[in-house]
Structures are given as structure tokens and as C-alpha cells.
């Protein structure tokens, strides 16, 4: 911002429609009308993003079309272009499709669970007394702030086979004996526990955002609907929900993106080596690259994940830009 100190004080803050700029590297001496200033301000940010996001993103695409292994990593051999070999390799692999389906089911389950629980809690927050609301808010924010790794180790402990408190509590119910039950013996059960962990971590953000949204719903509208004979469900369905729609769209798309990329929860829960039954796209890609040392195929898998998410990202961006526009 110091670039502007030379401008006389009473010059109006900006000119509309400055001449077109070409690149993000703003080495122009344009103090006259200040068109270069925004680019000067943006430069550091754009540089960092281009270096550690832009370039790797391009590299991810090129890697997917290359054979890149240990010897390329050490620079003994140059990377070799192999066309669609990596893709035909993974697409022809039955295990890969299993992983894709598992990831989608896992993410869909987590998102739905998160959104429904989040909405229910947000509505409940409106019904309870102030002190209960405060109590709930404190645990919500506290669990939101918990580092994922901490939460994962805590859940590992809760669901431990021999000394986990969850098994002990279940076994206290009449007729239930879960002593020594191993939740991670099979993929589906283990992933259910991991889903619970993901949802537990994700719900607070949803509840707090939705609660803020709920306070914006005009009381008069709800009242009017009630006078017109709408029941609690009707008011929710035809008044509350439509008003909250932008927030819900935003939260859902964000959750999809996050839940498709769940990694540390699975990785740490399975001690760094998730079994075949537990592999999601994220861990599968990691395994391919860093365990099997096939960086090309690992990248191809990651790229497929990104492509799968593009549609969701588009929806999110539209919503955010609309919100931005309103401001």
C-alpha cells in the first residue's frame, strides 16, 4: 500500500475500468492512475498460490500421463510419457472401482448424517433454555476445535477392542454382550466408526452456521404460515428451508469436498496401513504413490478424485459468488 503515498491527498480513491492488465507480475510504474496498485497488493498472494498450488496442480495432470517411480524421483531416469496407461491401469482394476464406490458411499453417508444431525441440533438450539444452549455451544465449539489427530486417537480409544468404553457401555444393556468386540475386524463396521468420528467433527460447524442462519428467518413469516394452518413440519418445509437454502447448499458442497478427502482419520485409525477393506480414494492414491512408489498412478487416482468433485465445486462457487455479489 505504500506505493500510493505519493498521490496527493484529495485524489479520489479509484478510477473505474483501468486499462487492461496482462499478467500477475506487476512491475509497472503507474502511479499516475494507480491501476497497478491492486496487482501489486495481490502479487505476493498470487505468487505463493501459483508456486505451491498452481504448479503442483499442473504437475498432477502431467504426472498422471507419465511413468514416474523411484528412479525418476532420484533423477536417475527422466519421466517417460505413457499416454493413458496410468488411467487404463487403474480403470481396469477391479479394486479401484471398489474403492470408488466405497468412497462415494462413505462420503454420501457422512454428508447426509452431518447435515441431518446438524439441522436437528440447530433447530433444537432454538427450543432449549439459554443455559442449555450455552452448554451445547461450548461442547460444540470445543469438539470443533479439537485437532483431527487428537479426535482420531480418542475415538480409537473409545472403540478399543479390550478396554474401549463403548463396548463396556453397550454390554451394560440387558442382553447385549459386546465385550472384546473388534470394531475394525471388517471394513464396513470400521468405516462406520470412522464415519461417526468424521460426523462428530463436522457437525459443530454445520450447527453453528445454521443457527446463525435461523436467526435471520423472519418471525412474522413463520407466524403467518402458522396462522394459515401450517403445522411445525409445514413451517419448516415451506418457510425455514427455502430461506436457509443458500447456507444449506454451501454447507453441503463443502461437506462433500471434505468428506471425499478424509485421510488422517482412516490412516491413523489403521496405524498407518489401512487394510484393503478400508481404502478410500485418498488413502489409495497415497498408497500407490508412497508405498508402491508409482507416483504416476497415484496422481491419476488423485486426478480422478478431483474430476469427481468438479461438479460439486461448481455449485459451491456459484453460491459463494452470489453471496459475494450481494455484499
Amino acid at each position, binding site marked *: *500500500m*505504500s506505493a*500510493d*503515498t505519493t498521490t496527493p*491527498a484529495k485524489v479520489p*480513491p*479509484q478510477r473505474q475500468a*483501468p486499462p487492461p*492488465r496482462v499478467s500477475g507480475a506487476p512491475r509497472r510504474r503507474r502511479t499516475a492512475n494507480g491501476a497497478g496498485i*491492486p*496487482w501489486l*497488493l*495481490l502479487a505476493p*498472494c*498470487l505468487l*505463493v498460490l501459483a508456486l*505451491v*498450488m498452481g504448479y*503442483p*496442480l499442473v*504437475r*498432477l495432470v502431467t504426472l498422471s500421463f507419465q511413468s514416474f517411480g523411484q528412479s525418476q524421483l532420484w533423477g536417475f531416469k527422466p519421466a517417460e510419457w505413457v499416454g493413458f496407461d496410468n488411467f487404463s491401469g487403474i480403470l481396469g482394476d477391479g479394486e479401484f472401482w471398489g474403492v470408488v464406490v466405497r468412497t462415494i458411499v462413505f462420503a454420501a453417508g457422512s454428508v447426509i448424517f452431518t447435515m441431518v444431525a446438524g439441522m436437528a441440533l440447530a433447530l*433444537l438450539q432454538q*427450543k*432449549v433454555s*439459554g*443455559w*442449555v444452549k*450455552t452448554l*451445547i*455451544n*461450548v*461442547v460444540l465449539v470445543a469438539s470443533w*476445535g*479439537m*485437532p483431527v*489427530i*487428537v479426535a482420531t*486417537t*480418542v475415538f*480409537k*480409544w473409545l472403540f478399543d477392542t*479390550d478396554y474401549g*468404553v463403548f463396548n463396556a457401555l453397550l454390554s451394560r444393556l440387558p442382553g447385549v454382550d459386546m*465385550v472384546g468386540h473388534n470394531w475394525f475386524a471388517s471394513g464396513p463396521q470400521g468405516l462406520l466408526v470412522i464415519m461417526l468420528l468424521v460426523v462428530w467433527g463436522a457437525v459443530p460447524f454445520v450447527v453453528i452456521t445454521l443457527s446463525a442462519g435461523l436467526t435471520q428467518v423472519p418471525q412474522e413469516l413463520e407466524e403467518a404460515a402458522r396462522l394459515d394452518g401450517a403445522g411445525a413440519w409445514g413451517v419448516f418445509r415451506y418457510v425455514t428451508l427455502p430461506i436457509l437454502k443458500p447456507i444449506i447448499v454451501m454447507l453441503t458442497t463443502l461437506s462433500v469436498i471434505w468428506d*471425499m*478427502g478424509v*485421510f*488422517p482419520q482412516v490412516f491413523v485409525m489403521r496405524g*498407518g496401513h489401512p487394510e484393503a477393506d478400508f481404502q478410500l480414494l485418498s488413502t489409495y*492414491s*497415497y498408497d500407490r*504413490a508412497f508405498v508402491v512408489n508409482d*507416483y504416476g498412478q497415484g*496422481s491419476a487416482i488423485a486426478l480422478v478424485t*478431483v474430476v469427481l*468433485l468438479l461438479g460439486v*465445486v461448481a455449485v459451491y462457487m456459484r453460491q459463494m*459468488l452470489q453471496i*459475494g455479489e450481494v455484499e
Partner: protein
Amino acid sequence: MSALTTDAPRKPTGGRRKSKVGWNLLGLLVFVVVGFPLYWMLDTAFKPAKDAIDPDPSLLPTGITLDNFRRALDIADFWGPVGRSLIVSLSVVVIGVIVGLLAALAISRFAFRGRKIVIVGILAVQMVPLVSMIIPVFLLLNDLDQYDKLSGLVITYLTFILPFTVWTLRGFIVNIPKELEEAAMVDGCSRTGAFIRVVFPLLAPGMVATSVYGFIQAWNEYLYALMLLSQEHQTATVWLGNFTTKHGTEYAPMMAGATMMAVPIVVLFLIVQRKMAAGLTAGAVKG
């Protein structure tokens, strides 16, 4: 539960019927269920190790001891990883907020060609699933000779927090009326002077909140810390993730380690979360 400070509005909301009791009971149930993992972490961390391996554990605290913390600190170097995490997170935040503020000013206070593209670009970057980027980022840092260096991790984390930082600061800046700046400029301030004397003080709380968010994000990151640093330079999250001993996983010391890692962060988060919300809603002209 733990002595977490609460002073949120407690209105009596008088004049409601008895039906509130039912909702309150349900609310308390939610409180217990959601809070249980936190409670159990603290409970295990402070209970004698032998009580922790009870197949039918008592749900209430059985006695308080610091042995587990001592054991956790013994098993592996704790302060080294914590120190590294602190260095990385603080560097990320300081650089991130400065760089982010400049960018946020550009997109919120200037009208220029390409502004929309920049905004879309920044939002799009935020949407890239970070897990997918680990392979090329790893190779890039390897090529730049930044593998196993804290600086490599700092620049990587910077890209993680920048989009969020820019977007949030933009929100705070937009809420400060331009007229305030213009008034200062009419009174003879330069544009920079107007920014420093008028906008900056109003922006400060938002910047603090944004920094803490960024700090927490950097502090909590796991995958990149695991991949970009060798075992001997591991950060706190990786330290906890690898927490095993010769005797397998000792859960009581592990929960002590978890407590040490989580409590400062959670407290920080509890404080800032309110500020953040307040900052987002408060009007700019407040005296």
C-alpha cells in the same frame, strides 16, 4: 465438564410453557453425547493407568494423577515436535495475514479488470482437495531441496490458509464503510494514512480472529507434516499419530498426550470463535 469458560447470553426467556423441560432434557442428552469423547479423553488422561485398562471402566473419575503425563513426556521427545509445530504455525500465520491482508485490500477496495477472475481463482484454490495435491507438492519440494525443512512446510501451509484468510479479511473490510476512509482523506489524510488510522483499528479484531483460525489449521495439519518432514523433525500431530510403545499402544499416556495437544487449541478456539462471530456481525461505525 472441564472448566471451560462460558459467559454467553443467558436470557431467562420467560413466559414459555412447561414443554421447555422436554426440550431441555433432550438438549442435555445432546450435551452429554457430543461432549463424551472430550470428557473421556480428560478422564483417561488423569486416571491411574491401571484403572484405564479396566474392561468395565467406571464412568466417573477414580482418582487424579499426573503419572500419565510424565509417561507421555518420557516415551518420546515431546517438546521438540511442539516447538517445531509452534515455529511453523506462527510463521504461517504472520506471513499469511500480511500477504492475505494486502490481497484482501486489493479485491475489496479497488475496482480493476480481472478482479472477478482473481476472486474466482482464490475460491477455486480453496476447493482443491488438499489430499490430492500431496504427490506433486512432495515432488516440488523435493526438487527445490525443501524436503525435510520447516520452511518447505511453512510455504505449503501458506497456500492452505491464504484463500481462507483473504476471503475472511475481505468480509471484514467490506463491512467497514468506505465513507470513513473518504472522510479521513477529506480531512487531509493520505490514502495510506487513512488506512492506518481508520481502517486498521477497526480491522484489528478480525485480523486477530483470522490469525488464530490460521494458526489452528496449521497446528492441526497431519498429512503434509507426515510426508514433508522426516521422523526426526516431526511435528506435534505426527508425534501423537505415531504414539505407540514397545508394549503396543498405551492409551492412558496417549490420552495425556492428546490432552496436552488439544487443550490449548480448544481454549484458543473457544475464545476466538465468539470474537469471530462478533466481528462478522458488528457494524463498523461503533464510536
